[in-house]
């Protein structure tokens, strides 16, 4: 039977190649996601394995479970480092003086990429990890040393004068040296500043978050930890350098893990769509070869042998597709690395292809192909030799109805599973359950779709059916509802996902616009395109600008509310109404004083009403009973649980000034004084903001645009990836049409003989193709809108308040699907017109 299999592959090479392509695209996602994950691993392992110079780290405890919890200690006194350095067995103990430091590049803008951090470190000439490459070390507050890759990206050179914004404070500096710590920076920028300046900016209250300890030659990390332990104050801890490295690496990997999950989801989508095509192709190939297979049966091949021969063919296709997929996957990973670099500023190096990647790619490719081919193979083996001669197997309508019922049942089950996850009734394994649910809905609809394909395709083509060409196309599209539906279903999946995503994005945009319109009262907003956050100092400077009546900066800090973790902010009740709309549900928003205002959800959480007293701790301040003066509606702009006066806030956060650039804010809302010209004030505010390099001044409309631009960037990525599933689906349409041409050779010959011109034949095929793709798009759009609306309803409480159905997108998708139909028909139609009329009608 092996010979027969090989002959089968040869005989249908082009069609199998198209099927192969479907497998390739699917497995490329699998391979790509693994390669990308491995390159992430490798990049971070490189960073952390070389950080060996640190033997022990004294630090504040990190509580991964609730990051909002306030620390027990405001920080470690810098003096502690000196005490530790004095211990026997300790070589060095360095307080970690680090914070944000933006470098102005040669082009006048900040050197940074995506969301990668801009780090400033204290220059330490004795630090063995840092090597000076050029120039000299920092000797004064107006001098900096710049890390090698950072300097390269800045376009500056040693000796140049520029601006560095250290922890939000701009100052003119000269670059006196170039250094490296021999680590991949992964896109971060690194600037070394004078130690005294670093201490002033990064540790204004004299405390740091951690102290790095190096032992004397020959000591193990455990020994150093043991040596240091007695000096570690209550509320702090000491761990080995290795533990610290492992922890950081784990955190980063978790943070970036979504990229992998994301890719694997797309691999699933691509393979799912690909499976439709593989299934379709093998069904058709088998149908065409019914006679051949029946002959094999007649000459004594067992059913099992026939099944195995078809499956062997599928396995060959799977292997070939997966091999190509592996190659394409590496390319995909490279492209995604570039994308990650531009989105998150993270530079990954290398494209490692590990054995696991190869195995996973091939296993997935072969298994999916084989599974998709099992049913057609079984069907082939079941065909009685007599039935093989029959040409047109019409589907009994009872079968269509049974299938419709079964399909709708499956879809309902899938929808139920989705609903359980979305309503949080299933929380364990939520993602797999959700994915299975979605897949079940798609499969169910695909199984049921032949029942709807007839009326829908009939309606779609009805306007054209008055001409002979239209009628021929209509009949062809209706000819085999199961095939039309299966081909369309592949398209349905991608379109449905695009539809759902577009409803979410449109709703998100509308919701943001709604919030800005309803809640923003100030005329201008000072905003940073992304992290790092804006230093609070900017707000004070803007407040002093002529014509500015008030500003709202909204710094936030962790707090405790009756023992629960909460988020605290401060506002000025006097100016608040001019800046942001906050609606009181109970009590009044006239004053704060020593009391607090609670958001509706926070009030519900702790069960407090106006007039009640709640135990509040802001930042690291004292816990105190405070009166609830008002309960306000949850606000999207002010996302606090508890609002306190500026004094209370300042008291609670005084010790926290040095924490990770805390005190930074996302944006500053500006109220322009009555009678002042907004445009003029805007210019003056822009002058202030300009010194910070990354800040822009926006009006309400622009602010909405900026906020939604981030949503749109992520969605652009989603669309691009979903677009690939549409490409796969299009290949499926091409495949189906190409096979139809082969099946209908005699009919096409006859039509041409009695006078159908080549353009007419092309048109016939194009209409059939378009009817199929538009039918698939209609199914997909319907399903996608349903998914999208369901998700939006579920996310109403998470800020997606406004439902917006993007009708223009829907129209574009439908028109686009018609275009896809036209394109998909080009090649098969060309082949059809090249059919030799005489041979077609004279051969049996």
């Amino acid at each position, binding site marked *: 039977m092996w010979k027969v299999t090989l002959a089968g592959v040869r005989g249908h090479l082009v069609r199998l190649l198209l099927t192969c392509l479907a497998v390739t695209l699917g497995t490329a996602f699998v391979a790509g996601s693994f390669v990308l994950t491995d390159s992430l691993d490798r990049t971070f392992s490189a960073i952390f394995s070389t950080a060996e110079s640190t033997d022990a780290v004294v630090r504040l405890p990190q509580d991964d479970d609730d990051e909002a919890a306030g620390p027990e200690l405001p920080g470690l006194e810098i003096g502690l480092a000196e005490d530790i350095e004095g211990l026997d067995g300790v070589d060095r103990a360095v307080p970690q003086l680090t914070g944000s430091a933006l470098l102005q590049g040669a082009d006048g803008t900040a050197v940074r990429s995506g969301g990668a951090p801009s780090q400033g470190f204290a220059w330490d000439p004795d630090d063995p990890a840092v090597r000076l490459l050029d120039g000299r070390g920092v000797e004064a507050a107006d001098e900096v040393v710049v890390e090698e890759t950072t300097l390269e990206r800045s376009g500056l050179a040693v000796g140049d004068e520029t601006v560095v914004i250290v922890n939000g404070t701009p100052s003119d500096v000269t670059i006196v040296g170039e250094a490296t710590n021999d680590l991949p920076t992964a896109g971060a920028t690194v600037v070394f500043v004078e130690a005294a300046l670093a201490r002033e900016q990064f540790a204004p209250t004299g405390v740091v978050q951690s102290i790095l300890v190096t032992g004397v030659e020959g000591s193990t990390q455990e020994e150093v930890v043991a040596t240091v332990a007695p000096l570690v104050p209550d509320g702090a801890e000491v761990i080995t350098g290795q533990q610290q490295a492992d922890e950081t690496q784990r955190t980063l990997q978790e943070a970036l893990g979504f990229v992998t999950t994301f890719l694997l989801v797309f691999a699933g989508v691509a393979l799912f769509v690909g499976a439709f095509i593989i299934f379709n192709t093998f069904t058709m190939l088998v149908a065409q070869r019914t006679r051949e297979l029946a002959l094999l049966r007649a000459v004594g091949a067992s059913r099992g042998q026939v099944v195995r021969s078809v499956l062997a063919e599928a396995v060959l296709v799977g292997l070939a597709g997966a091999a190509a997929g592996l190659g394409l996957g590496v390319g995909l990973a490279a492209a995604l690395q570039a994308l990650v670099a531009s989105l998150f500023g993270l530079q990954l190096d290398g494209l490692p292809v590990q054995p696991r990647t190869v195995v996973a790619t091939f296993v997935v490719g072969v298994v999916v192909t084989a599974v998709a081919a099992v049913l057609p193979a079984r069907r082939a083996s079941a065909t009685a030799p007599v039935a093989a001669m029959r*040409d*047109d197997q019409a589907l009994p309508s009872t079968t269509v109805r049974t299938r419709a019922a079964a399909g709708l049942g499956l879809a309902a089950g899938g929808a139920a599973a989705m609903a359980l996850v979305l309503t949080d009734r299933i929380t364990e394994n939520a993602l797999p359950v959700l994915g299975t649910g979605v897949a079940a809905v798609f499969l169910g609809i695909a199984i049921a779709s032949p029942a709807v394909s007839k009326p829908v395709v009939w309606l779609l083509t009805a306007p054209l059916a008055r*001409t*002979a*060409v239209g*009628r*021929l196309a209509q*009949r*062809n599209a*209706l*000819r085999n509802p199961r095939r039309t539906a299966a081909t369309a279903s592949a398209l349905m999946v991608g379109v449905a996902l695009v539809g759902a995503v577009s409803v979410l994005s449109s709703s998100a945009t509308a919701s943001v616009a709604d919030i800005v319109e309803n809640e923003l009262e100030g005329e201008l907003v000072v905003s940073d395109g992304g992290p790092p956050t804006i230093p609070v100092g900017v707000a004070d400077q803007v407040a002093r600008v002529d014509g500015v009546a008030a500003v709202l900066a909204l710094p936030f800090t962790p707090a405790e509310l009756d023992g629960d973790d909460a988020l605290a902010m401060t506002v000025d009740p006097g100016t608040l109404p001019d800046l942001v709309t906050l609606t009181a549900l109970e009590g009044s928003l006239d004053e704060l004083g020593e009391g607090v205002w609670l958001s509706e959800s926070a009030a519900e959480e702790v069960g407090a009403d106006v007039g009640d007293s709640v135990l509040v701790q802001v930042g690291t301040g004292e816990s105190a009973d405070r009166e609830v003066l008002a309960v306000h509606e949850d606000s999207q702009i002010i996302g606090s649980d508890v609002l306190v006066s500026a004094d209370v806030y300042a008291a609670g956060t005084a010790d926290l000034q040095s924490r990770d650039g805390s005190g930074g804010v996302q944006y500053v809302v500006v109220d322009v004084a009555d009678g002042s010209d907004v445009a003029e004030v805007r210019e003056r505010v822009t002058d202030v903001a300009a010194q910070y390099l990354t800040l822009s001044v926006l009006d309400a409309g622009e602010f909405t645009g900026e906020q939604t631009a981030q949503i749109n960037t992520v969605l652009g990525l989603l669309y691009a990836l979903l677009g690939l599933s549409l490409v796969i689906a299009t290949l499926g349409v091409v495949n189906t049409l190409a096979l139809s041409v082969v099946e209908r050779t*005699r*009919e096409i010959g*006859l*039509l*041409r*003989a*009695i*006078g*159908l*011109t*080549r353009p*007419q034949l092309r048109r016939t095929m194009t209409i059939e193709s378009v009817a199929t793709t538009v039918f698939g798009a209609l199914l997909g759009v319907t399903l996608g809108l349903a998914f999208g609306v369901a998700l939006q309803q579920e996310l109403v409480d998470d800020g997606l308040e406004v439902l917006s159905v993007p009708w223009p997108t829907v129209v574009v998708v439908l028109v686009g699907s018609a275009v896809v139909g036209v394109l998909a028909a080009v090649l098969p139609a060309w082949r059809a017109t090249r059919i030799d*009329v*005489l041979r077609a*009608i*004279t051969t*049996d």
Partner: protein
Amino acid sequence: MSDTSSRTATVTGRHAADATPVASARALTKVYGSGDAAVHALAGVDVDFTRGEFTAIMGPSGSGKSTLMHCMAALDTPTSGTVVVDGVDVSTLKDAALTRLRRDRIGFVFQSFNLVPTLSAAENITLPLDIAGRKADVGWYDTVVDILGLGPRLGHRPNQLSGGQQQRVAAARALIGRPAIVFADEPTGNLDSRSSAEVLGFLRRSVDEFGQSIVMVTHEPSAAAYADRVVFCADGRLVDEMRRPTAERVLDRMKTLGDL
């Protein structure tokens, strides 16, 4: 375009033909392959098919009779020589013009697989006109359908029709556009004698009553007997012809054809 409606449908009689041939070939050759392996399917054929006449082409297998018909019907391109159909020199035409010629001036009846399986009998009959974007002459359509007794079957799909019914639908389709000439390629090859008689009777009638020109390839003497004239092919040449054939005479002639 060849508007055949000018030709009257009331021409009757076996020999009421025009003087000019409806189709003719001169020095027609068709060679497959080249060099030593060359096969001369047609080795220089001159033939005229008279307007309003029913001509049968006969000959043993491999005699070139089908090739001759395919070249005459613009389905195949000759290696050399000229073919003129209804005044049009076929050998100068490109695919699009050839397609239009077949659509507007030629009717076809093939041996099998004559009908588009997705179309009803009625739709199959009017297909050439529909493709051309023309309306069927209602009176003519009714006449054809009526003569062929297809009335009750018009809504049926081909797979619901018997072989004889399918060939009658094909015959109706060939005639619906009043083409200059109908080419029938073994139209009764797959039919029983009764169905054959129905189809051939209809072809005969269309010549007698409506002046239709018909060329039919066949290997059955009984079918050839329906024709006005029989031309005999052997080894790629026309070797003889017979007027007013009967089945016996044709059979006798066929027996000696191999001896030439």
